[in-house]
C-alpha cells in the first residue's frame, strides 16, 4: 500500500481539476458524478491503509519530490501515514463522502453547482495532504490551502455582502494564526536544524530529549505556544474563534464538512502530531489547557442565547473543540483524538440535520419561526435527536465515552490545572445538554410558529440516507473506545504516542465519573424540558432580569467588538495617517519641495539680470573687487 499512498489525495485533486476546467461549459448540473466517485475511492483506499497499519503496526511513507532545495534548508514533500494519520484519514474521507452525497440534494438547482463540486474535492485533497504531511512546512502549505478552500466555500453565495465579509474575516483570522505557526516553524528549524517530524533526527525525537541537544526549555515552550496559537487560528480557540460563527454564511454541507468535522480539527491534529514538544514544557501544556477550558465554557454559554439554528451548532463545535484542546493540555492525548473522531460523526450529523430542517423550511434559519417539525420531518427529527443526545453525552452514545474519558483524563493528569479543567468540563457538559435540547424542543416540539405559506417537507433520499448512516455511526462509534482507557482505540493509538506513559485509572474512578457525567447531562436535559416544553420559566422575563449577562452572552462576549475597536479600526486610522501625512505630505512634500524651492530661487536670481549695462558693469566691478580682496588677503603675504 506504501506506493499507492499518493492515490488517496490524488483522486479528489483530479476531480477538482476536471470540475473547475470543464464545469462551467460542459458538466454543469451533474458535477457530483465526478466528485462522489473520487470521495468514495479515497475512502476505500483509506480503509485499506487503516487495515494495513492496524495489522502490522508500523507507519508507511512515500517520497514524492524535493520542493525547496535552498542550501541546507532542504524540503522534500513526502507522505507519512502512522496510526494517528490513519484515524484522521478515515474521519476526513468518510465525512467528505457523506457530505458529497448529501449536497446533491441540498445544492440541487444552485447556479454555481459545478463550483461547489470543484471546491469540495479541492478541500478534501488539501485536508488529506495536510494529514499525510511528514514535515511542518508541507503541513503549513496545505494548512493555508485548506484556508483558501474555506474562503472560497464560505464566499460561495458571492452576491451576498455578508458572505464576502465572512469569507474575508475567516481567511484573515486564519492568517493571524498562520503568522504564529510560520514563526513557530522558523524557530523549530533554527533550533532542531530540521522540520521533519519522524526519523532519528526528526523534531519529535529531538524535542523529547531536548536537554541533551543543548536546547533550553524556554525555546521548547516558545515553539509549543507558537504552534498552538497557529492551531487556535484554525481550530477556532478562544481569541481567534470569531470567524467560525460567521462562517455559517456558507452552504450548510460546507459547514458540516469543514467547520465541524475536518478543517477545525486540523489544529488539534497538528498539536497532537507534535506532542513531544508540548510534553517538553508544562507551561505550554498549561497554556493549551487554559485556552481550551475557556473556549469550552465560553462557547457553551454563548450557544445558550443564540436564535439561529446553525449558530447554536457552530458554538457547540467551538465548545467541543475547547474540550479537545484542554484534553491535549492535560496530557489526555488519546482521549482528545477519540473525542475528535466521535465529535466528527455526531457534529456532522447535527449540521446535516439542521441543513435538512432549513431546506425543508425554504431557507428559514431562525428557531423562533419554527416549532413542532417532528410531525413534518420524522427522519430528520430522530436522527437529530440521536445527534444532540450524543453531543450532550447521554450514556450509550459516542459523546458520553469520549467526553467522559477527557474529564477523567484531565482529573487524573499530573498537571495541577487538570482538576480545574475537569470541573469546567463538567459545567460545559451541563450547558451543552441544556442548549442542545433547548434547540430540539424549540425546533421539533411546541406549536408551529412559522407562517402559513411555509409548508415544511421531509428531505429527499439524497439527504436522508447520509443522516441515517451518521446516526448509526454516532451510536456505535463510541464502543470502539470501550472500556475507557484501554479500549481497542487506545491500544491502537498508543503506537503513535509512544513517549506518552498512560495513567492507572481505578475502575471505581471510571464508574464514579461515568455516573457523575450522566447525571449532569440528564439534569441539563431536564432544565431544558422544564423551560421550553413546560414553559415553567419565562425566558424573556429571565432575560430582562439578568439583562446584563444576557446581553453579554448574546453579543458573543463582545469579542468581535473588541477586535474591531482594538485592532481593525486603529490599523485603518494608522494607514490613513501614513498615507495622507507621511507619504503625501512629508516624503513627497520634501521631494517636490526641493523642486519648487529651486524654481523659486531661480525666479529670484533671474531678477539679477536687470538689462541695464550700468548694473552689469557695476556687478562685474563688485565681483572683481571681491575676488581681489579675498585672494589678496588669503594668499598675499600682506599682513
Amino acid at each position: 500500500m506504501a506506493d499507492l499512498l499518493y492515490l488517496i489525495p490524488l483522486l479528489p485533486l483530479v476531480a477538482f481539476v476536471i470540475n473547475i476546467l470543464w464545469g462551467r461549459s460542459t458538466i454543469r448540473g451533474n458535477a457530483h458524478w465526478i466528485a462522489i466517485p473520487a470521495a468514495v475511492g479515497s475512502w476505500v483506499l483509506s480503509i485499506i491503509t487503516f487495515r494495513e497499519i492496524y495489522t502490522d503496526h508500523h507507519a508507511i511513507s512515500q517520497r514524492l519530490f524535493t520542493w525547496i532545495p535552498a542550501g541546507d534548508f532542504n524540503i522534500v514533500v513526502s507522505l507519512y501515514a502512522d496510526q494517528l494519520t490513519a484515524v484522521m484519514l478515515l474521519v476526513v474521507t468518510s465525512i467528505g463522502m457523506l457530505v458529497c452525497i448529501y449536497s446533491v440534494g441540498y445544492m440541487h438547482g444552485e447556479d454555481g453547482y459545478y463550483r461547489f463540486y470543484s471546491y469540495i474535492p479541492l478541500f478534501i485533497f488539501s485536508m488529506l495532504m495536510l494529514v499525510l504531511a511528514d514535515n511542518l512546512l508541507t503541513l503549513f502549505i496545505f494548512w493555508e490551502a485548506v484556508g483558501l478552500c474555506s474562503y472560497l466555500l464560505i464566499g460561495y453565495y458571492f452576491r451576498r455582502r455578508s458572505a464576502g465579509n465572512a469569507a474575508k474575516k475567516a481567511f484573515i483570522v486564519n492568517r493571524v494564526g498562520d503568522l504564529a505557526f510560520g514563526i513557530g516553524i522558523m524557530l523549530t528549524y533554527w533550533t532542531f536544524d530540521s522540520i521533519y517530524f519522524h526519523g532519528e533526527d526528526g523534531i519529535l525525537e529531538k524535542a523529547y530529549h531536548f536537554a541533551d541537544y543543548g536546547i533550553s526549555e524556554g525555546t521548547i515552550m516558545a515553539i509549543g505556544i507558537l504552534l498552538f496559537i497557529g492551531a487556535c487560528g484554525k481550530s477556532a480557540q478562544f481569541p481567534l474563534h470569531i470567524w467560525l460563527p460567521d462562517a455559517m454564511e456558507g452552504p450548510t454541507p460546507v459547514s458540516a464538512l469543514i467547520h465541524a468535522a475536518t478543517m477545525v480539527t486540523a489544529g488539534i491534529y497538528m498539536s497532537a502530531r507534535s506532542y513531544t514538544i508540548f510534553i517538553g514544557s508544562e507551561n505550554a501544556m498549561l497554556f493549551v489547557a487554559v485556552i481550551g477550558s475557556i473556549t469550552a465554557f465560553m462557547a457553551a454559554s454563548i450557544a445558550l442565547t443564540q436564535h439561529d439554528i446553525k449558530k447554536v451548532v457552530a458554538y457547540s463545535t467551538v465548545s467541543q473543540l475547547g474540550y479537545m484542546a484542554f484534553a491535549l493540555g492535560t496530557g489526555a492525548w488519546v482521549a482528545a483524538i477519540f473525542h475528535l473522531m466521535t465529535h466528527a460523526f455526531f457534529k456532522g450529523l447535527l449540521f446535516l440535520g439542521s441543513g435538512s430542517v432549513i431546506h425543508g423550511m425554504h431557507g428559514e434559519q431562525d428557531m423562533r419561526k419554527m416549532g413542532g417539525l417532528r410531525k413534518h420531518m420524522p427522519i430528520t427529527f430522530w436522527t437529530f435527536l440521536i445527534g444532540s443526545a450524543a453531543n450532550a453525552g447521554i450514556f450509550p452514545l459516542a459523546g458520553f465515552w469520549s467526553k467522559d474519558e477527557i474529564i477523567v483524563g484531565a482529573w487524573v493528569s499530573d498537571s495541577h490545572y487538570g482538576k480545574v479543567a475537569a470541573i469546567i468540563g463538567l459545567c460545559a457538559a451541563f450547558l451543552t445538554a441544556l442548549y442542545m435540547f433547548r434547540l430540539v424542543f424549540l425546533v421539533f416540539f411546541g406549536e408551529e410558529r412559522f407562517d402559513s405559506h411555509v409548508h415544511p417537507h421531509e428531505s429527499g433520499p439524497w439527504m436522508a440516507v447520509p443522516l441515517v448512516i451518521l446516526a448509526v455511526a454516532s451510536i456505535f462509534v463510541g464502543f470502539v473506545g470501550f472500556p475507557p482507557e484501554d479500549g481497542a482505540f487506545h491500544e491502537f493509538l498508543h503506537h503513535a504516542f509512544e513517549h506518552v506513559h498512560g495513567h492507572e485509572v481505578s475502575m471505581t474512578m471510571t464508574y464514579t465519573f461515568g455516573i457523575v457525567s450522566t447525571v449532569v447531562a440528564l439534569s441539563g436535559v431536564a432544565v431544558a424540558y422544564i423551560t421550553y416544553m413546560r414553559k415553567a420559566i419565562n425566558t424573556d422575563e429571565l432575560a430582562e432580569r439578568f439583562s446584563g449577562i444576557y446581553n453579554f452572552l448574546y453579543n458573543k462576549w463582545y469579542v468581535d467588538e473588541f477586535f474591531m475597536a482594538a485592532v481593525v479600526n486603529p490599523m485603518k486610522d494608522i494607514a490613513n495617517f501614513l498615507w495622507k501625512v507621511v507619504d503625501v505630505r512629508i516624503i513627497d512634500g520634501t521631494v517636490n519641495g526641493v523642486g519648487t524651492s529651486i524654481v523659486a530661487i531661480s525666479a529670484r536670481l533671474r531678477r539679477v539680470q536687470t538689462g541695464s549695462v550700468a548694473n552689469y558693469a557695476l556687478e562685474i566691478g563688485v565681483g572683481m573687487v571681491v575676488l581681489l580682496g579675498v585672494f589678496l588677503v588669503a594668499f598675499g603675504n600682506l599682513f
Partner: protein
Amino acid sequence: MDSFPILSILTYVPVLGAIAILLMARGESKLPKQIALAASLLSFVLSLIVLFRFKRDDTFQFTEHHVWLKDLGVSYFMGVDGISLLLVVLTTLITVIAIVWSWDTVKKREREYYVAMLLLETGMLGVFLSLDLFIFYIFWEVMLIPMALLIGIWGSQNRVYAAIKFFLYTLAGSLLMLVGIIAMYQAYYNQTGVRTLNILELQQGAALGAYSQNLQFWVFGAFFIAFAIKVPLFPFHTWLPDAHVESPTAGSVILAAIMLKMGGYGLLRFNLPLFPDGSASWAPIVIILSIIGIIYGALVALVQPDMKKLIAYSSVSHMGFVTLGIFVGNLQGLEGSMMVMLAHGFNTGALFMLIGVVYERGHTRLIDAFGGLASTMGKWAAFWLVFTFASIGLPGFSGFIGEFLVALGTYHYKPFAAFMTFTVVILSAWYMLYLTQRVVWGRAWGQAPDPADNDLLPEEKLELAALGSDHGHGHDDHGHTAHPAVSGGDHDHHAEDDGDGYPTHPGQINSSKWPDMTMKEMICIVPLAVLSLAVGVYPKPLFAIMEPALKAVLEGATRVIGS
C-alpha cells in the same frame, strides 16, 4: 570565451528592430507591431537557448570581452551567471507579453511606442548582462529615456508630472552612483596602478583590500541610494505610485515586472561582492528600512481608492523583501530575495494586466467604480482570484517560497525582525481580499440584493421590500426561482430601467455589457499564471541555476569566467 556572441545579439536585436521601425515609411500599417513582436520574440528565443545551455555553476558564461577605451581601462565585457540569467529570461518574456498586450490598446503614435518599447528592452538586457561598470552605467541611463517617454506620451491624466518625476528621481540616484563608480575606479588605480572597470578585477581588488573602510562606506552609500530608488526602498518610493498610475498598462507591467528588479540585481551584483565591509556596516540600516517599507507599503495599500496605486504600494511592500533578503547574510535570505523578484514579476505583472483589462472597458481605476464582476466576467474573476492569492503568498504559488525563505533568513539574523516581517502575511491578505471583495464579489450592476444577505444596507432592504411585493414569495436561502444572481438583469424588470439596470452602490459604472477576457488578454495572462503555479509547485530547477552563484556571492569568493 564562447566564440558566438549570443549575448550581444540578444541585447541588440530589439535595437535593430527599433531602427527598422524608424526607417519604415510613416504609413498607418500594422508593420511596426509585427516588427516589434518579431524582434522581442527572437530575443526571447535566444534567451531560452542561453537558459538551456547554461552550465549550473558559479562561473560567468557566454562572456564577450573587447577593449574599448584602453586609456580609461573601459572594455565591452558582457557575461551571464546564475543571478542575471533568470532576470534576463524574465525580461524578454515580459517584453513579449507587453508588446502582445499593446497590440490593440495603443492607438496613437504607434511607431514611437514600439521604438520606445524595444529601446527599453535593450537597456534592461544590457543592465543585466554587462560586467563592466562603464557599459552597465550606459545601459542604466539608456533605460531611463524610453520609460519616461512611455509614461509621458501614452499615460493618463497628469502623465507629464509623473514622467518628469520618475526621470529626475532615477537620474539623481544614478548620477550619485557615477561618482561612486569613479571613486572606486580611482581607489583601485591608486592601489594597483591598473585602470579598469571590469567587475571581476574590481572584486579581486576588494578581496585584497584595495578599498579603505571609509571609502567602502561612502561608495556603498552612493551605489545603495541609486539602487534603493530603483527598488524602491521606503523613503525613496514616492515616485512609484505616480509612475504606475499614470503609465499605460504595458508600461506599468514592464515597470513592475522588470525595472523594479534592477535595484535588487544591482545590490546583489555590486554592493555585496565589491564592498564586504561596507555591506556589513550598512546592513542594519537597510534591514530596518526594508522592514519599514514592507509594513508601510502594506498599510498604505489598505486605504488606496485607486486600484493601480494599491498594487503599486503592494509592490513597495513585496520589494522590501528583496533588500531584506540580500542583507540578512545567509543563503536562504539571498535565494528568497531572488525568488521574490521572479514571483513579483509574474504576479504583479499579471495583476496590472488584469487591471488593464478592466481599465480598457471602464476607463477608470477607482475601486468604487467596480463591483460584482464575478457575475459578468467569470474568467476574469477566476484569474483575478488566482493572482490575488499568488501575490498574498499562498503556498502552491510562487509568492510564498520567496517570502518564507526571506523571513526564515531574517529569523536567523534577528527573531523579532522576522516576526515584524512575517506580519505582512496578515496585512497583504487584508488589502488584497478587501480589493477582491469590493471589485469581484458583491452585487453586479443592476443585480437585485440577495434576500438571505445578513449585512443588507437600509436602502437595499427598501429595494427588497419593493421587489418582494412584486414576487410575493418569501426570501429563500437557496430557492431555485428567486435567484436572479447570475441570470443577470434580464429577469429583473426594475422600475426605472435605464436600458440596462442601475448602480448598486454609489460610483459604480455600468459593467453589465463588458465582454469577458478576449483571446489576446488570455494569451498574455495564462502563461504568467502557469509560470507562477509551476514555480510555486516545483522551483527546483530555478534553485539549481541560482544557488551556486548566490553561494559564491555570499562567501565573497572571487568569480572566474567559465567556458
